């Protein structure tokens, strides 16, 4: 009961802070968009619209109100879960996002999986065999991969692997005729739900290169952080104590060293989640995937205020959520943080 109260207190505090952050983010971006030149009413009315038509649209969209009023009505709608209407698609932004989000989330999720699945084992081995061949080669690889512009890597790999060698699809999210009924909007998931193995592997085949490219830069960061953190932990006294008990290297690494070096890695992957969605724009463009990157890019280009706001709010929410998850994971991993954050003295 006590623990439950402590957890809910912790959660509500974090959620409160996250909401505060989101509100700040929304306000900032709202202001930014309103400061941008360009006339939304004109964009909505069309390039060839006459002045009278533009004014009519302006009135209809409520753009004739003072900016501060627009801000408040925006906040009011936001509270009701309404992200506003896109002036380009003339659709509720939420509906638009529903179409583009799953694809991006799928990409980012798989990239994150790849990222961790490659970087963590590599980091462990490199740190344990510090100075060995694996350490040297993986560090060089990390530096090289981390040094290439993501879109450049994407273009080159797309050409070499996709166009010339044809080992992966060149672009797109699935092959012709492989679409499964839409449930989530993410092709791999939808294929799974439709129990269509072929479609699932087809979608996976399409996502693997984009996800790998996206993961590359981030994996190098995780690898380096984990390696450094592990080296620190491996030097610490309790590792010697574990060895003095006669533990095998494997036991020592997995049960003691790794959990103790996870904290900076968790923190880093929290910040990476947001950055990944940001970088998804580049990868989505190259691989012709329909995701939030392309949507947002288009929205900014068209001064589609609510579409931009909606996208940013979404990314902000993901970032806040991921950070919340990271906080909770840290809490679960480390009893000291648990004690400090939850205030329970472990009774």
């Amino acid at each position, binding site marked *: 009961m006590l623990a439950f109260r402590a957890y809910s207190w912790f959660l509500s505090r974090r959620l409160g802070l996250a909401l505060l952050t989101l509100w700040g983010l929304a306000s900032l971006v709202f202001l930014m968009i309103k400061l941008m030149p360009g006339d939304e009413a004109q964009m909505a009315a069309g390039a060839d619209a006459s002045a009278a038509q533009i004014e009519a649209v302006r009135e209809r969209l409520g753009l004739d109100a003072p900016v501060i009023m627009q801000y408040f009505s925006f906040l009011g709608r936001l509270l009701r879960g309404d992200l506003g209407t896109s002036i380009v698609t003339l659709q509720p932004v939420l509906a638009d996002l529903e179409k583009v989000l799953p694809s991006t989330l799928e990409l980012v999720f798989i990239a994150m999986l790849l990222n961790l699945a490659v970087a963590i084992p590599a980091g462990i081995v490199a740190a344990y065999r510090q100075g060995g061949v694996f350490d040297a080669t993986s560090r060089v690889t990390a530096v090289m991969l981390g040094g290439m512009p993501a879109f450049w890597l994407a273009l080159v790999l797309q050409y070499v692997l996709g166009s010339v060698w044809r080992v992966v699809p060149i672009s797109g999210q699935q092959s012709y005729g492989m679409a499964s009924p839409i449930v989530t909007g993410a092709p791999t998931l939808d294929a799974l739900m439709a129990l269509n193995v072929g479609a699932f592997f087809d979608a996976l085949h399409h996502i693997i290169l984009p996800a790998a490219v996206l993961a590359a830069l981030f994996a190098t960061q995780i690898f380096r952080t984990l390696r450094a953190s592990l080296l620190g932990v491996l030097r610490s006294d309790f590792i010697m*104590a*574990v060895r*003095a008990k*006669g*533990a095998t290297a494997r036991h020592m690494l997995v049960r003691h060293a790794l959990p103790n070096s996870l904290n900076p890695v968790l923190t880093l992957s929290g910040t990476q989640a947001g950055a990944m969605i940001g970088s998804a724009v580049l990868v989505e463009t190259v691989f012709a995937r329909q995701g939030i990157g392309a949507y947002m890019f288009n929205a900014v280009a068209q001064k589609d205020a609510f579409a931009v706001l909606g996208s940013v709010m979404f990314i902000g929410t993901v970032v806040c959520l991921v950070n919340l998850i990271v906080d909770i994971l840290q809490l679960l991993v480390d009893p000291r943080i648990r004690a400090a954050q939850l205030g329970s003295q472990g009774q």
Partner: protein
Amino acid sequence: MKTVHPLPDEASVVPVRQPLITVEKLTVDMPLGRSGSSVRIVDGVDFTIGVGERVALVGESGSGKSLTARALMRLDRLAKLSGRVDFDGTDLLKLSDRDMGKLRGSSIAMVFQDPMSFLDPLMTIGDQVAETLRIRGIGKAEARKRALAVLDELGVDRAAERLDAYPHEFSGGMRQRVVLAMALVGEPRLLIADEPTTALDVRVQDQVLDLLDDVSTRRGLAVLFITHDLGVVAGFAERVMVMYSGRIVEDGEVASVFAKPSHPYTQGLIKAVPRIDQDLNTLYAIPGAPPPPLARPSGCPFHPRCDQRFDRCGVDLPALQPVGMSRVACHLLDGKGA
């Protein structure tokens, strides 16, 4: 609860003990950066610890006590060891890593200086104590039961409830008991205790010493007790070895060393301790500071700080020679001194 163990009468003859571990010409070299060069920290140490014997290793910070102790268990991955460490007839320095691993925790165990930093902060106390057994394939329930028994034996109250607590929830003294339990649960024959009380305040230190005392007597456990506090040595050990700059400079029965220290360094150390049971006067202070391993003076490493030095001290390295019941490394005792 506690059994009170009668203290040995110091007049009684020292029992002749079966040697448990014999160290011959042990050197420890530590690498220096990437250059491939290394520095000799422990420089040719010989000693024996008998079965059930309690030996103290004292010396100033940096003199190489910990590295010597860890060399016995080959715990420093980077250290280059040479010499012989004979444990029960096998040379530990020649064992494979696997076999050495099997020995650790079951034949030789270690208790460390700072109980906090030697406990994994993310694992419960119970799991950490039981781990020594679990590694050896003992079942979870059984390991836990035995862990609990050891914790109980060491006077951790409400031990059963506290198996699931984390190290940070324990006080310093309790943590030291846990660390001790970790060492004892594998039923070793030699316990190396590296400054197990230095981080504790006097009262807790006292409790831990009592505990060690009890356990070693009850289990017939040999203890190598490392400390820089001579007061602690006096109350606990049977034999004391004084280390200075990587070498043993004096080794003898506690009673005789304290009564009549032979080496000027030992004399200085004893005089420098403020005593609660004597009159007040200005404390004796050994001038200067111990040399770092890379800048050891020639000859006797102690000579720049020694108030009885003479010409030869700066030239020749004195060897550890038997002097009465003890062994001492000092030119003064060659009979040619001032």
